[in-house]
């Protein structure tokens, strides 16, 4: 049974990390890039506003960081729960 409990804790921790990543993923693209763009339009960057930068460049850069952070965080989690390969 301890095996089952350990894998349950592992899965719950994984889900929490996924939620954090998905919130950031949505915030930079749908949030800053589209819906919240008027709110941050006062911050100007290179001849336009911050929302435009997020929509055309920033969101993509954040996506890359997000995936590598998730991969590194999960490798640590795998080791902590003894389920790494």
């Amino acid at each position, binding site marked *: 049974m301890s095996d089952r409990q350990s894998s349950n804790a592992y899965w719950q921790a994984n889900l929490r990390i996924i939620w954090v990543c998905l919130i950031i993923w949505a915030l930079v693209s*749908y949030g800053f890039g589209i819906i919240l763009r008027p709110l941050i339009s006062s911050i100007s960057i290179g001849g336009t506003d911050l929302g435009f930068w997020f929509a055309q460049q920033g969101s993509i*850069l954040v996506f890359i960081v997000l995936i590598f952070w998730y991969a590194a965080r999960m490798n640590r989690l795998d080791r902590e729960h003894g389920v790494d390969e």
Partner: protein
Amino acid sequence: MDQFTLNLIVIGLSFALYIGIAIYTRAGSTSEFYAANRGVSPVMNGMATAADWMSAASFISMAGLIAFTGYDNSTYLMGWTGGYVLLALLLAPYLRKFGKFTVPEFIGDRFYSQTARIIGVICLLIISITYVIGQMTGVGVTFSRYLEVSNSTGLWIGAALVFCYAVLGGMKGITYTQVAQYVVLIIAYTIPAVFIAMQLTGHVLPQTGLFGTHDASGAKFLAKLDQVVTDLGFANYTGHHKSTLDMVLFTLALMIGTAGLPHVIIRFFTVPKVSDARASAGWALVFIALLYTVAPAVGSMARFNLTATMWPGAVTGTEAGSTFSEPAISLEQIETAPELQWMRNWQTTGLLSWEDKNGDGLIQYYNEAGAEGAPVAEQIAAQNLQGNELTTVNNDIMVLANPEIANLPGWVIAIVAAGGLAAALSTAAGLLLAISGAVSHDLIKGAINPNISEKNELMAARISMGVSILVATILGLNPPGFAAQTVALAFGLAASSIFPVLMMGIFSKRINKQGAIWGMLAGILSTLLYIFAYKGWFFISGTNMLEDTAANWLFGISPASFGTVGALINFIVAYAVSSATEEPPVEVIELVESIRVPRGAGDAVAH
């Protein structure tokens, strides 16, 4: 050396490279054919995934889509990259742990149902075949433009090449060829962009040039572009003009559609470990981002260069109306000036055309629909303009004509041609592999003859790939009228059927056979119904029941964005039906528990 010989040499060399790699990496077993023996490193796999994913549409069309719409089409940039976050977090590691060869195989095993597997195969075939037609058409067009052969000869050459390395090498050959194709296409895309960014802004990196200062006028480049296009009566480049709801739904449809495309998912079956599958999605996005962060710079700078060619006064000055400080370009210049040879080249293809409507010997490019209140309104009265005189500017010439517009040397033009072909061929090969796997592994081995030997299955896979190449080529020669609509269809189907069913299969133990089947059917049918209602039944024009305009769309949701709603319907129906029926059997719950844990992925290779 003339341009034709240069094109021939560069394209010929790139093809020789692909064939050499294919011969070196022939596949000998089904595991090599379907999954490259799961021995591909995450960086290599990321590069191959990037080439697999970036099609003729990414390479040729995307910058043009952004150029003429501006901010509103950022949806493509976010949508076609954000899907990789979903792949890394929600699908790739678990499907790699599952350790089989095809997407329908997972659906069949997880939902313990042959019916679910067959529905998966049908979705996969519709998505991949519509997608591959577009690639073959792109191959034909590129060949006929750069090698001066007929469209059909070009297509047959492309088909023969894909046949060589895809049928021989399977996933193993395709993977290493795609790595080479990625290198060719990214060089081809970046070189002209760097030259143009240096000319306009002095930045070496197009990514920073986009937000840099325009040298000739001293204004920020994007502010300068906004001023020039609004002078001419066009909507400002950085402004938000489309419905916010539709932008969000369209971006989401592209993201979950990307994550649900079978030919992208199967790439993650080739890496050795679960942790490699996660990292590989990150590497894929790095290599994709090298092109996708350059694309908005290419689009905006090409738009500026085109406008400045038509209105020489647009280069200097920053105040509204300064575009008209000099008269528009004359008809005589367009027809004789050596630096405008590219305009005459592209005129012969029909993708660019002009007409001196008011007979003043000048070609005035502007937007009459948006002229009211814009500085161009005065000019319309003063110069007696009779309408926009640059009558056709096709989106697609923005990338292909880019090196010619900027007067770059001939070898750059030849590399761009080779890059366009690499983009189309690498995507076609990935799609063909997904199709042949579904036919030989899911239909023949899974449903018709489960006792087939490995040798015969490999033969069946090769034959089905050969047949798919033939079908794709014939459809590419006579593209059905709906070719342009297929993107909406492929992404709508992938988003509404495959992505939800895979995600529920991993993240829920409660979704059962009935839930999966009814969910997939509800998702696909609602999406097809919505697309056909506006685009015509099976895309036959005139059979649409509702007019395809924003005012008519349900809540302003365009048919291309409806995949998001279809996915939602799929989730809801699957949950409701599963709750009303029995729980999945114990062995399926054990399967779900095993794919959630990375340990032991290596063992699952033996089949």
